[in-house]
């Protein structure tokens, strides 16, 4: 039995997760995390087909697991159920497509200018909606012509043995799909900040962490991705090189989901889990003093910081905040919403879009009332989503940090 399933027995039926669930709050079609989770699990027979499909409305934000007072891995139970559902049913082409951001990037980046203009054209969006069910209101990122790995060929290493420098001051950068294919400037700034702080940044071989596959229930493929990453990253982790990522969902996969949800066991995955850090988590642990000594440029702006669900699920607080707060004249407001609604690829789906948008309404309202210059958020899909629906620029906190350190993109 998969580990999270053991926690079904812990459920006291208190409904705190149901009350906290952002999706159940806006649609009756989702009976809530408890209902489709620990409760429904008692009725799912391993040898009979799944009786329920409503678990598909779960956006995977993970709030339920965080608020459970009794240790039920509600979100994990639900994503496992989704995996079962997908296995039993036919997966729509759309879900296959959006679950492969890396493949899309690889195909589209050589023809980025064409791909970008055509995919963002209105008729194209209309067609995508009508044919495969990608909502035309959902943000779609732009492809880069030159992926990060191409820009930093000299920093790509296959094994730690190739590195000539001081292992103690080396970090392995897990850039994920977005920094490689969609936002390479973010990757550049990450490397620049780390180098400024005295680290050598190496880029180990890697592929998509597998989260979009997992969220769409494509567990076998997600597991293949995980295995590949484990094989590539383990030598670095075993050398004591920290693995640092700027995408909070990728790093959560490495830390948590590979083991707990995909059920991968072994020394390698354990070592990777304990060696992986969110970018700001790394900074606040390893270079705390150096950061305290930095004299940040002042940044005269009003901004709102929204810590994304996946960051909250790390259980590390919001480490970016302590650094952002050191920036003079940056007036920071905190998000009062638990979730922006995007849910990774969830909000892209035609049938899910209205729900996702409704979930984000609270955040969008707060943002519009505050008269902000920009919004800050660690997760890429949330950033694209919030930008699309508020019209404001949305930055990764490291972009703000870079700006305050005079690091130009």
């Amino acid at each position: 039995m998969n580990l999270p399933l053991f926690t079904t027995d812990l459920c006291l039926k208190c409904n705190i997760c149901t009350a906290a669930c952002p999706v159940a709050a806006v649609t009756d079609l989702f009976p809530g995390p408890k209902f489709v989770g620990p409760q429904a699990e008692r009725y799912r027979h391993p040898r009979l087909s799944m009786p329920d499909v409503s678990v598909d409305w779960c956006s995977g934000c993970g709030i339920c697991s965080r608020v459970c007072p009794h240790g039920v891995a509600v979100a994990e139970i639900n994503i496992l159920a989704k995996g079962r559902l997908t296995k039993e049913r036919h997966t729509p082409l759309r879900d296959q497509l959006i679950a492969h951001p890396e493949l899309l990037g690889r195909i589209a980046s050589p023809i980025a200018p064409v791909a970008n203009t055509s995919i963002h054209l209105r008729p194209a969006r209309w067609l995508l909606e009508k044919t495969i069910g990608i909502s035309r209101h959902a943000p779609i990122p732009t492809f880069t012509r030159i992926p990060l790995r191409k820009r930093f060929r000299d920093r790509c290493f296959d094994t730690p043995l190739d590195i000539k420098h001081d292992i103690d001051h080396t970090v392995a950068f897990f850039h994920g799909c977005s920094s490689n294919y969609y936002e390479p400037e973010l990757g550049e700034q990450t490397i620049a900040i780390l180098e400024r702080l005295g680290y050598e940044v190496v880029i180990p071989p890697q592929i998509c962490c597998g989260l979009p596959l997992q969220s769409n229930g494509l567990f076998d493929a997600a597991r293949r991705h995980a295995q590949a990453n484990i094989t590539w990253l383990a030598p670095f982790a075993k050398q004591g090189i920290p693995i640092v990522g700027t995408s909070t969902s990728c790093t959560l996969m490495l830390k948590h989901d590979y083991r707990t949800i995909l059920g991968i066991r072994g020394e390698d995955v354990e070592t990777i889990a304990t060696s992986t850090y969110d970018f700001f988590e790394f900074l606040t642990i390893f270079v705390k003093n150096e950061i305290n000594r930095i004299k940040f440029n002042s940044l005269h702006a009003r901004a709102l910081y929204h810590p994304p669900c996946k960051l909250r699920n790390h259980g590390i607080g919001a480490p970016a905040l302590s650094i952002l707060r050191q920036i003079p004249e940056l007036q920071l407001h905190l998000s009062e919403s638990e979730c922006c609604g995007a849910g990774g690829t969830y909000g892209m789906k035609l049938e899910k879009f209205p729900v996702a948008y409704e979930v984000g309404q609270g955040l969008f309202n707060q943002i519009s009332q505050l008269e902000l210059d920009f919004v800050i958020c660690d997760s890429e899909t949330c950033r694209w989503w919030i930008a699309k629906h508020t019209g404001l620029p949305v930055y990764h906190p490291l972009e703000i940090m870079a700006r305050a350190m005079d690091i130009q993109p």
Partner: protein
Amino acid sequence: MPVLSTQLLVIGGGSTGLGVAWDACLRGLKVVLVEQGDLGQGTSGRYHGLLHSGGRYVISDPTSACDCAVENRVLRQIVPHTIEDTGGLFLATPTDPIDFPDRWFAACQELGVSAEEITTAEALRLEPALNPRISRVFRVQDGSLDSFDLLHTLTAEIKRAGGQVWLRHRVEKLILNGNTIVAAEIRALDTDELLTIGADFFVNATGPWAGQVASLADIKVPIALGKGSMVAMATRPIHTVINRCRPSSDGDIIVPVGTVAVLGTTDVEVQQPTDTTIEPWEVDFLLAQGEILVPQLAYQRPLRAWAGVRPLYRPTTGELGETRELPRSQIILDHADRDGLQGLISVFSGKLTIFRLMAEQVMDLVCKQMNIAAVCHTAETPLTMTSRSFYKLPDRLAKLEVTTSHDLPQVVCECELVTRLAIEEALRFASTLDLDEVRRELRLGMGPCQAGFCAFRAAGIAHELAPTAPASGGLTPFLEERWRGMVPLGWGHTLRQMELTRRIYLELLQTHSLPEPTK
């Protein structure tokens, strides 16, 4: 003066009594059945849930084994909707007698009890939670059978066929004319009224009470009572009946029934049919034995414990010595033959699996004595008008799936997925607004929270239907019955659940200071 007379009066509304009444109806007799409690309040509502393949008796009681094998097939035909076709496994562990599986398997083949040996790898593929150290595995035709469903179906069919089923009526006196029983004095427990029913023939099907009822006619039926305790786990770690392949003993079976898996049983001699207190050692023993078959039980939540009482026939002198194992096969006593008393047959012991056969045997005897030529039709008469398929675990959940928000069901009991509509319907047809009766019919409050979050909702619905009754109607006794089952498991998960519930009701809602419900 009898207020009513009938051809046959059946005393006891368990599976045996209802089976007899149904058989009698099909033979064209006028029948009244009286039951002192509600459906399933006796042993039939407290049993283990196993539809026997016969495998458990091939060594100790070959006749029962054959009967079970045959009746198993019959019940699958006539009441499929009460049965889950789980299949069963007999597992030998390394600590069990090494020669037993071969002896057992040979006996199965000789008696026609279908059994097939499979590899341990196959068994683990089927049931990954099994102890990987098992040495041999056989597959049999076990199933699980929801007795509440069975009792309700039987009652409905009896009524449809013109028979009467009186609940909460207790036989307190049997009235003789010479050496013939002619009438029974019955107390209506709701009103405390006494009535008399005259009948041509009487069947005493009162299970562990059979001795007490027989004594109303001054007949001695010596019965030893054996209490068997069971523990239900909140979720099912296995979906096949798991038996231990060794000489039959305590704690050697796990039955997946509905949403739970039931470990059982013990065997402790008790004095009264109502003596169902669970001892701490019984719980420890059952859990420890269960873990041998399914190790992960150690990490799972036991939900509740309860006990049923077996009547075991113990004639004072004669064939059976006190020390020998008392037979568990059915006992049918023809009191005309045995005691010179006309018009009464007692039937008890046996198994729920063979209730139909027991009823057939009783009715054959009744008909012979009454000079009626009718023959039994129960084996080929399906118990519901339409042909239904086997009960399946996912059904309840599947029924609640909706695609639009217009037809949202209001789920009152979230653990067992009981809707408001179902409760309202049950209450409307119930003889009283009793939550415990609704529970037995719908499984209200029988899941992990043991009514913690549905009792007050259900009480509210009951109040809506009968606004003059106190809103507390039956809430306290209903909850106390739930807690009684949790107390023997008062540690860990179960204790925390119970304490949460108790604080909600006793402190937040102050239910203990509510007025007592009036009858």
